[in-house]
């Protein structure tokens, strides 16, 4: 009975993994390969029309929506992925060092400035910094990453702190292991589950920030081919030509939902089954 149950749950897990993969593949493939499959932009048509050789109609300035969809993923996906990766690039060393150090002062030096950042509402920060530096997509990624660093660092700090308190770390130190091997090879790796779960939800949050930044007109040109910008700029035509909003919005949803499903399935512990009397 149990073996059967385990097999069933494993199968379910695999199928959900496949589902997540399938959902996330659509936006990813479109984003990464889409630009390769578009030719020259045709002549502009009237805005928000359906048909007329435009598969998904035209957008608010009369461009082909399908072409915009193919082009518009790269910035969103790359900005979001880069921002998430960048946030961890900073948060990981900061969190690990402050979890593993014995110097309170070092921990303070590392974590307190982040606490300050945490107290600035993220949209205010994005609004101000973006106005000062007028960043492009890369700048936006940097900025969104910056906003995410404090929180990510705290999570790394907490997860790593719990692992760092285990005797295994002391045992490794008794073995004369290097700091790197302890921090990355053991503490980092043991915190992986927590961090990956966090990364999934963080990616969603980052996408939210990126698309809200587009709504506020920060970081990307208002007529850029960008899913988030498309959703914002085309919403005036929602009643005339819904595809220009619905398709990019669905792609964003697919990206985040798929990613999270994938992470969930990959990280899931073997499910508990309750023992039963026959």
């Amino acid at each position, binding site marked *: *009975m*149990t*073996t059967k*149950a*385990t097999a069933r749950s494993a199968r379910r897990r695999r199928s959900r993994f496949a589902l997540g993969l399938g959902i996330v593949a659509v936006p990813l493939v479109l984003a990464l390969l889409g630009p390769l499959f578009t030719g020259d932009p045709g002549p502009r048509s009237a805005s928000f029309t359906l048909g007329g050789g435009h598969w998904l109609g035209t957008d608010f300035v009369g461009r082909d929506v399908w072409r915009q969809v193919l082009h518009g993923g790269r910035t969103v996906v790359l900005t979001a992925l880069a921002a998430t990766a960048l946030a961890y690039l900073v948060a990981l060393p900061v969190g690990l060092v402050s979890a593993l150090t*014995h110097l309170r002062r070092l921990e303070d030096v590392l974590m307190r400035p982040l606490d300050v950042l945490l107290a600035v509402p993220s949209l205010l920060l994005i609004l101000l910094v973006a106005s000062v530096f007028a960043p492009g997509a890369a700048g936006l990624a940097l900025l969104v990453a910056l906003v995410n660093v404090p929180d990510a660092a705290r999570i790394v700090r907490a997860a790593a702190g719990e692992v760092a308190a*285990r*005797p*295994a770390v*002391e*045992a*490794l*130190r*008794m*073995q*004369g*292991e290097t700091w790197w091997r302890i921090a990355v*090879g*053991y503490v980092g*790796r*043991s915190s992986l589950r927590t961090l990956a779960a966090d990364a999934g939800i963080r990616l969603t949050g980052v996408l939210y920030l990126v698309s809200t930044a587009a709504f506020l007109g920060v970081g990307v040109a208002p007529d850029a081919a960008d899913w988030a910008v498309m959703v914002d700029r085309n919403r005036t035509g929602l009643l005339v030509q819904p595809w220009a909003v619905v398709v990019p919005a669905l792609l964003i949803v697919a990206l985040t939902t798929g990613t999270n499903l994938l992470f969930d399935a990959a990280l899931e512990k073997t499910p*508990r*089954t*309750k*023992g*039963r*009397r*026959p």
Partner: protein
Amino acid sequence: MRNSTDPVAEIRDLRVEIDGRAIVDGVRLRVRPGKVTALVGASGSGKTTTGLALLGEYPPGATVTGEVLRAGDAPAGYVPQHPAAVLNPARRVSALLDDLARPQVRHLPRSERRGAARELVLRALADAQLPDGEVLLRRHPHQLSGGQQQRVVLAQALLLGARFVVADEPTTGQDALTKSRIVQQLAAVAARGIAVVLLSHDLDVVRALADEVLVMRDGRVVESGPVRRLWSAPRHEWTRRLLDERRPVPEGGTSPDAGPPVLEVRDLVAAHGRSTVLRVPRITLRAGECLAVVGRSGSGKTTLARCLAGLHRDHRGEILLDGTALPRSLRHRDRARLAAVQYVFQDARAAFDEHRAMLGQVARTAVRLRGVDEHTAVREASAMLGRLGLAGDLAHRLPGELSGGELQRAALARALLARPRILVCDEITSGLDTVTRRALLDLLAGLLGERDDLSLVLVTHDLDTARLADRIAVLDAGDLVEQGPAQQVLTAPRHPFTVSLLEATAHLSSGNRSRAGT
């Protein structure tokens, strides 16, 4: 009317299977009021599964056949090995007990329920020997001592009106004084007419408490009977072996008085935050010598061990290795000095990286501390593990796939691969069953005999284990109260604390329930 000797619970031909493997097979058991029934066996022998079956609980995914009967709907109590685990950390003690008292006062008018419930709770606390109940009720579980936690759990069982209580390894890892207190408590419970089912590998406790004993091995009951009969005339070969393991630990050789000390501790004062937790004027250790550091939990013995290993930096005074001071933190100890003092942790499972195979982890010692190349290190590690009884396939497993005893051997192997001058073992046998513990101690004794340059610091709460040592240092509440040759400390203790510790041990092993703990 119920006959006072009618069983309150009974197990008939219980068989519990997981993944086709029988964990418990054909167990029969009767639990009688006011009697203590002990299930004895090594870990993995099926005693916990049997005990929980009495409560109607089975491991996840288990297939169960056989019968578990309870007289009427007799409520059952449960006292686990770690009482903190079953006390909800987010709720106050009062809430934890109120939940159980409420249903019992439901027949009363609404206005009176509260008072009546309170009454019941306080009585149960008093019965569980927690007199200052009012104060206690306001606390959260983590604000209680381990003993108080255990008594609160007991109070829950009493409050429930439990007809029998299953106590799972209640004394494991406790020092003699605590043990005798627990024994006395369980005896008091039995004296109230409540049946006690004791699951334990601690034969002293079993002998002191039990009326009936069931000896289990691999899920089967190999022998059962009254405790006296079993002790005096064990019939089954396994019982004999089990009892045989109780023979005294090999005593340490005469201490080599000659030669300068390898390790010397001078005026050591260690602190945790602002409070001083340890004061040791002087301790020395010579080459080939084994020093036991004995004390109750919280006495500072682990802190002393950690100071030696460089894991506790917050201390003053000097620790000299071969006459030169060791840096306080192992961060500042060079390779040679790091290798010279090695440390084996109490919780072996937590001391390994759960993601990597054992062999690789053990081998790293040789790579890092002795500069051996990877290949040689693995070969050496394999040999060392083999010598300690972890040959072949076992060495390639992940830590999660090894038993407690096996992990502790691997931990020893990891430390020994550094070729240490001093090996600090912190409670490495607590939490292991008698048989495993014995094997490990034999191993240590063997090591001492083999290598004269190896000195051992054995931190333990168990005087029995301390017999292995040449010399014994006794710590109480952070103070070094007595030290001297093992023989002398064990037979002619000078300090009253040592005396009481010895007495408690003696009472336990004499098997006398009524006098225990007085």
